[in-house]
């Protein structure tokens, strides 16, 4: 690890000012940042410790749940308002990492964690995300874990956050020191600039998330499939929120993890269900719509099937399809 400077600002303005220096990085729980620093996957200069900022609250007011960026994963998962009104958020968090990591890690850091692509995390390997223009060894390499959606010829890395998939399904809004915008706009696909993962400017601080409390969000669930029972990132995951009117799907959100380069929402899959009854036929159609644009590589083609199976299983559990 290279040497760095350290500062612990007391308020948001100071934090943002310090973060303007080149190479500056915020540190929240440090559960990802420190690994990236040790692995040499990301350059760093000044480390700005934001844990002294008052951004840890979780409050419900006027039909909106506001989660501070520094709220710990474990606290958010256990919060009664979250569990009641946003079950998918709680479930996604409880399916993330381990209790120890969840006690350390903050939700702001979580949605900005970086990919687990083994090439990216290996300082001895080239990678477009790490060093633009050096090539992507995953394209023809070990890509079992890589994306089938949203990839490019420059990068196929999966966005690893479970929470982000859930926040996308409940129409969250991102709050930063300078603006607010839909969570759906936070992450970007790699295209030709895989080093660019979000729309945040350098030194822009996420202060929290706002999530409207709706009947749709209250009927939401998360299904995560992986190679061991727990303490692993998703091979594929699905977040679904479903509002029914009788037999008919009144509204639906379908978002996916493990399969895409960013937290992935599929309007096509949602359209295949909205206003229709929840049947084997419509669920199958939704799954097909989801993977219509999928691009597979040597080792990840199984995800095309697996993600449809996950969607099918989750919708049946959630909606009682017949």
């Amino acid at each position, binding site marked *: *690890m*290279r*040497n760095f400077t350290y500062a612990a600002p007391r308020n948001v303005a100071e934090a943002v000012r310090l973060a303007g220096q080149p190479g500056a990085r915020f540190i929240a729980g440090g559960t990802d940042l420190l690994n990236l620093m*040790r*692995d*040499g996957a990301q350059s760093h200069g000044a480390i700005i410790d934001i844990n002294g900022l008052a951004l840890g609250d979780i409050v419900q007011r006027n039909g909106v749940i506001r989660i501070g960026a520094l709220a710990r994963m474990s606290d958010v998962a256990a919060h009664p308002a979250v569990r009641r009104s946003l079950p998918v958020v709680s479930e996604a968090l409880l399916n993330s990492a381990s209790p120890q990591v969840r006690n350390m890690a903050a939700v702001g850091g979580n949605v900005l964690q970086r990919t*687990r692509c*083994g*090439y990216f*995390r*290996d*300082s*001895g*390997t080239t990678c477009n995300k790490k060093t633009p223009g050096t090539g992507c*060894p995953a394209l*023809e*390499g*070990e890509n*079992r874990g890589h994306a089938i959606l949203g990839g490019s010829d420059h990068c196929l890395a999966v966005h690893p956050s479970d929470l982000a998939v859930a926040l996308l399904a409940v129409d969250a809004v991102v709050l930063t020191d300078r603006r607010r915008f839909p969570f759906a706009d936070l992450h970007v696909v790699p295209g030709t600039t895989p080093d660019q993962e979000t729309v945040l400017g350098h030194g822009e601080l996420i202060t929290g998330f706002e999530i409207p409390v709706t009947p749709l969000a209250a009927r939401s669930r998360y299904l995560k*499939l992986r*190679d*061991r*029972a*727990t*303490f*692993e*990132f998703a*091979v594929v995951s699905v977040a679904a929120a479903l509002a029914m009117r009788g037999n008919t799907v009144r509204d639906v959100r379908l978002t996916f993890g493990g399969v895409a380069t960013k937290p992935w929402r599929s309007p096509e899959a949602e359209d295949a269900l909205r206003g229709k009854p929840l049947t084997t036929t419509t669920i199958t159609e939704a799954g097909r719509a989801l993977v219509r644009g999928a691009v597979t590589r040597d080792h990840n083609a*199984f995800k095309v*099937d*697996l993600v449809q*199976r*996950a969607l*099918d*299983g989750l919708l049946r559990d959630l909606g009682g399809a017949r």
Partner: protein
Amino acid sequence: MTVGQPVERVDGRAKVTGAARYAADRTLPGMLYCHLVMGTIARGRVTAVDTTAARAVPGVVEVFTHENAPRLTSEQHFMPLQGNQIHYNGQIVAITVATTLEQAQEAAELVRVTYAPETPKAVIADALAEVYLPANQEVIVGDPAAGLAAAEVTVKQNYSSPPHHHNPIEPHATVAQWDGDRLTVHETTQGVVNAQRTFATAFAIPQTNVRVLAPYLGGGFGCKSPVWPHSLLNAAIARQLGRPAKMVLARSQMYSIVSHRAEFWQQLTLGAKRDGTLTALVHVSTQQLSRTSENMYSHSISSRMLYACPNIHTRQQGVRLDVPTSRFMRSPQMASHFGLETALDELSYELGVDPVELRRRNYTDVNPTTGERFSSRFLLECYNLGADAFGWSRRNPKPGSTKDGHEFVGWGMATEAHDHSASPSSAMVRMAADGTVLSQTATQDIGTGTYTVFTQVVAEALGVPLNQVKVELADTNFPAAALSAGSGTIASVTGAVNAAASAVRTAVVQLAVSNPASPLHGLPAEQIITQHGYLFSPDRSRRESYRAVMARHGSPVQNTSTMTNARGYSTGAVFVEVRVDPRYGRVRVTRGVGAYDAGRVMNRKTARSQMIGGFTWGIGNALMEHTVLDRRTARVVNPNLSTYLLAVNADVPDIQAIFVDKPDPVSTALGARGFGETPITGVPAAIGNAIFHATGRRIRDLPFTQDKLLRELLTQ
């Protein structure tokens, strides 16, 4: 009686409170920190190393490359930094030395290495034309061709398993300090005596000039049995720079310089009569070898030792690839055992014979390869005990016959077997004038329970309470004893510990009966009973404490004994239940029962821990564990514990361990045999067999991940 009891670990408290000091915990005055720079190509040459930026980091004392590194040779291993050749990815290409760890690490990142790379070969599939048979790797018993011709049923199948890395939780660490030409090393080693020899040879100094200590080890599993080149380099650097030096490996570095289990391909051909008796067993395996060594570490021992079969052929082929040299890994027999026990399961379905019954019908009391009789063997009892505890008789043999909700339920089993090593070992036992007892021997406790078991052995031999006994291990100043590898620690060293303790007892009893001041004076020594810290007359009417005898004697009583033991073979049977969710290809192991013949059980708790550990690792091996190599670069893609998956608690069901617990009559270890590696050998096959029973689908390539299972389920 304390031997056999489930005594708590005597070192447990020190470990959980942090009082136990491991090699990496050693910090010496003036110590330098060494950090490794690992190469990024698998084959070719280093053409230049630029150390300018690294040397400019404050605190950096030296940067070693192949051009200026201390000259060293190793009999056992390829020694890096002696030339510019690269033989595997992740080879040591430079070492930074600084006054703090952080400085050494920062400097390591700044070393710039330029290579002339060549195209490597990483996996067996890419070098099939280069498969060959190294010397002495073929065993033929009887007439296998005739045996196959006489078979009424034949099963011929291919199986494969990936490379694995040992991943003990404690990374390798070494701290070297020179005093003139005397060297002290705190080393993460499974064998201090072996390490002492290696250091002495490398530096051409007498073995007695080297002291190696490893009082605590956070697991080894084989990757800490040899002294690796990095430790020799660290000691050489300490000598050259005239200061103590420390080197601790990062987790990722443990994926290239401390060995692994080789990728393994195998073909099993079983010929049998209709009743299931084997007529031929042909086992052809291929494992990856390195460019620098043709040593093999995965052996088809089960095929040669486990079942009655008159015609056996094992052929252990290799293929040389641009990968590091592999090594024994708990258990080195499991790769080949997976093939054998899966093939037997396949045969059982071909024949319509229950898998347990098929194994019973091929049971043998004699080693089929040598014709020698096993000293004791209760494997049939293991089948019975295990099957009863599991409820095997209720099994519907038809695959896919049991469903519970979405899940198919399957039951599978396998025999477990591993032979253990035994090497001559010595131990010292001394009773001090205050009656307390110290035992010292230069074997190790690598996390398995040696401290605890030897405390029990000494306490029982003397007849004193456990808390009166202190055991010290893993210091070459102690009497030489066995390497903790090949499941051999208890089997090798217990006899010497017991003999030394018994000799001390005899001497103290003699002190009592021969002294008129003792209440036991004049009694025949051989009739004295020793218990609870006292010496009793045969009718227990008179007694005197050890403490009193020793106080009167005024000086310690000590004995050092040496003992040899025979190698042995511990076997068992493991039964598992799995649930397979066909929607997602997801497998859960929901029940496990193992029954074992390990000779006498010295401590039911530590033995059970070995079984649970083996079973748990077996789950990981079956369902997830594998090292992923990039085929183009021969570089490990998952060198960390977040992507190299091992079973976690949530993957592990309730596990039941049953022991026959009958002493092996030839074992000098109070009837105990080595056991540590036995209870992992059969687990992957048992799980695969259970998956077949659940679904009717057979996967022959480890691990059984969702993608493979889905592929099988989709091709119904």
